[in-house]
């Protein structure tokens, strides 16, 4: 262990422990949540900047926790993919925590929801970072458990009857998913004597045990990612929570289980899938996309539109499974579908969190989120409506947003792989997104009713938080070359060659 090992270890330690320390501190002190969150953001971002510099300079690296190499110990894996998700998460969490100071601030007296919000939010962040850096299937399970429990608590944090029901239903789905995932991990350990993803890659074959394990892991994680037909828990849970919680739940939480799916299929078991399985995953994604979009069109509450949009948008993350590989290696860039899926996951995280934060500000201004009440809201909340529109551009996949880059990469991969069906689906997804997002936007710019009550003022500083996120999602498209090159660092071979 030389002195040059210090910066990477320090960066990872900060990223892994700062949110957890923050959560524990907030759990003790009670009314200092916002100040502790600020300190946590500073410490975590310092670690992330260090990590980005190290990975950009020296490439991906692993760190054996406690000095115990796999298969005995747990390996942390820091590559472009992990750092991309970690950096995006920090940006999203920063904006959410900044805006949450008002609804979850404490006065002289400690309040229940204001007390529990801060440790829960910081634990959620800590769980995400632990998942993004882990290279071990069981350690990922522990991270998922922490994430799930915290997410369930955040759904029910307002203590209303219907949100508690949504939280319970979410918990049932999520725990079922956890158990299936754990079953798969246990089978793989029994067969191969390791839980390390890199070691599994050399050992997993096509034995019946491996196939059952892969099926269980995939089904479990798909349930947690709300893939059709496991989507029923998502809309009530995501729309019922308070806006800062919704932003975390919709923007970040499902990305963790999708991230593990990516790691599992592309790194632990790239050769196990048959074409039919890949088509099934992509097909369910397409179904989710259409179903979620159509239901989003039918909602009369803004938060429900955004929540159903998440069902749709998560759906086409799954196009990566049939699309990876094929002739796309012949493109000027390799790994088009894989990179496209990652771009979509990251830009959706920013745009969706931004939208939920916008919805929260609109609710603060008019007291509810029923669509007719939004008429002319642009006069009272110009920055918020602008942010909402920018986020909508990303979700529709219009240039020059990160969502456009994602779709462009996936569509070219789709044509190159000789599977134009998926490209067609992506176009349809964009059109449907434009349709369901047009309604709230058109109302926001309409003339307000004369007898409508005047909206309450919302400070410019708080309106800036969703705007920053929406702008970041656009910048991910305008400046896509840098992030694109970065996430390729340490990219798995299967991202280029495809599964099967």
């Amino acid at each position, binding site marked *: 262990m030389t*002195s040059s090992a*210090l910066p990477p270890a320090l960066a990872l330690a900060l990223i892994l422990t700062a949110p957890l320390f923050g959560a524990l501190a907030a759990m003790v002190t009670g009314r200092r949540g916002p100040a502790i969150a600020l300190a946590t953001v500073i410490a975590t971002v310092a670690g992330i900047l260090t990590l980005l510099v190290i990975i950009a300079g020296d490439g991906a690296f692993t760190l054996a*926790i406690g000095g115990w190499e796999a298969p005995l110990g747990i390996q942390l894996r820091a590559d472009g993919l992990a750092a991309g998700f970690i950096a995006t998460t920090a940006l999203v969490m920063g904006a959410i925590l900044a805006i949450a100071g008002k609804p979850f601030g404490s006065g002289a007296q400690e309040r229940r929801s204001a007390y529990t919000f801060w440790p829960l939010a910081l634990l959620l962040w800590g769980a995400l970072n632990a998942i993004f850096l882990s290279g071990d299937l069981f350690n990922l399970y*522990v991270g998922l458990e922490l994430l799930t429990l915290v997410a369930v608590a955040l759904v029910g944090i307002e203590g209303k009857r219907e949100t508690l029901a949504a939280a319970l239903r979410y918990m049932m789905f999520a725990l079922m998913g956890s158990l299936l995932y754990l079953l798969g991990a246990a089978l793989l350990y029994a067969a191969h004597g390791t839980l390390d993803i890199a070691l599994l890659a050399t050992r997993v074959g096509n034995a019946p045990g491996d196939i059952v394990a892969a099926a269980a892991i995939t089904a479990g994680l798909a349930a947690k990612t709300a893939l059709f037909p496991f989507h029923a828990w998502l809309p009530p849970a995501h729309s019922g929570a308070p806006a800062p919680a919704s932003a975390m739940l919709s923007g970040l939480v499902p990305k963790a289980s999708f991230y593990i799916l990516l790691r599992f299929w592309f790194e632990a078991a790239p050769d196990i899938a048959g074409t039919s399985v890949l088509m099934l995953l992509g097909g369910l994604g397409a179904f989710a996309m259409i179903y979620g979009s159509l239901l989003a069109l039918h909602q009369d509450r803004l938060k429900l539109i955004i929540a159903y949009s998440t069902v749709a948008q998560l759906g086409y993350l799954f196009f990566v499974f049939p699309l990876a590989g094929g002739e796309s290696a012949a493109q000027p860039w390799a790994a088009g579908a894989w990179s496209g899926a990652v771009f979509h996951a990251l830009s959706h995280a920013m745009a969706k969190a931004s939208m939920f934060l916008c919805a929260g500000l609109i609710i603060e201004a008019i007291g509810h989120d029923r669509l007719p009440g939004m008429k002319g809201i642009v006069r009272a909340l110009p920055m918020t409506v602008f942010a909402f529109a920018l986020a909508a551009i990303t979700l529709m996949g219009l240039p020059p947003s990160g969502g456009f880059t994602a779709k462009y990469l996936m569509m070219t991969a789709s044509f190159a792989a000789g599977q134009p069906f998926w490209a067609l689906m992506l176009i349809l997804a964009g059109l449907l997104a434009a349709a369901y997002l047009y309604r709230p936007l058109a109302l926001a710019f309409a003339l307000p009713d004369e007898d409508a009550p005047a909206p309450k003022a919302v400070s410019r500083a708080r309106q800036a938080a969703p705007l920053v996120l929406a702008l970041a999602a656009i910048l991910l498209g305008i400046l896509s070359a840098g992030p694109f090159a970065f996430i390729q660092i340490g990219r798995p071979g299967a991202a280029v060659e495809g599964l099967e």
Partner: protein
Amino acid sequence: MIASLFDLTLCLLILAAAGAAVFGRAAFMAVVFFIVYGILIAIAWLRLGAIDVALAEAAIGAGLTGVLLLAALARITRRIDAPEPSTGPDRTTLATALASLVIASAIAFAFLTLPEPQGLQERVAENLADAGAENPVTAVLLNFRGWDTLLESIVLLAALLGIWTLARDEAWGGRAGPRHVTRPGGVLAQFGRVLPPIGLLVGIYLVWAGSKQPGGAFQGGTVLAAVWIVTIMAGLMQAPRVADRALRAALVIGPVIFLALAVAGVVAGAFLVFPPVHAGWLILAVEAVLTLSIAVTLAMLVFGPPEEEEKP
């Protein structure tokens, strides 16, 4: 012959208890059979030679979960009239049964085709000398896979926060759970005086012995939690207020010290290192504080959210 007869009977009993828990009409019977099921599973782990797992299953799977379920049941019956039990299986039950059947068949199929299991026992044994614990299970939990255990200890706190979000706003800050009053001289009150000293001894012994023999922070912490729970259910003490700083410090002290140790590894260019020379006492120290936090957290989980409004 006798051993296999015993195992066969045990397996049948496990299946019967599971069936009774799942298909029992009355919720109370289901909970009771769930506890029986947990104890039988613990015996099964004993038969398999996994004494640590057996202890954990008995303490947490049967004991603590059983208490939690009974407490939940008491709350449900106190607040709402129990719905009429439906006659015959409904569609949800059938769907669940079908899904369980498919999954069970898949597991059985996968299990029967598994190659000779490749555990890590040899590697653990090779590295045990540097791990700071003679009990291989403790070495794995605290050292080789300490990061898992650290996160698990925080998962418990997340569960507690989740339960606390269920409090009514007016009751926030008050004492956890309902107030327990018992008849002086009654069984519970007597029990509450006799059991705690013995339980304290057993709990602390389990942690102390854990470095060499089966035992450890989770098992010891559960026993200590049980001691506190009995004392409070017997009305000898009151549950703490959730706003109590000392309580909150006790909840987090274990994970905080474990996290601090994890960060200290950075000096050596690593994360969560137990230097072999100091590993022995470091593991014991971490286990001691973890036991305290686990015991307090588990007990607070059982007490539940604050219920009574604060009286000024």
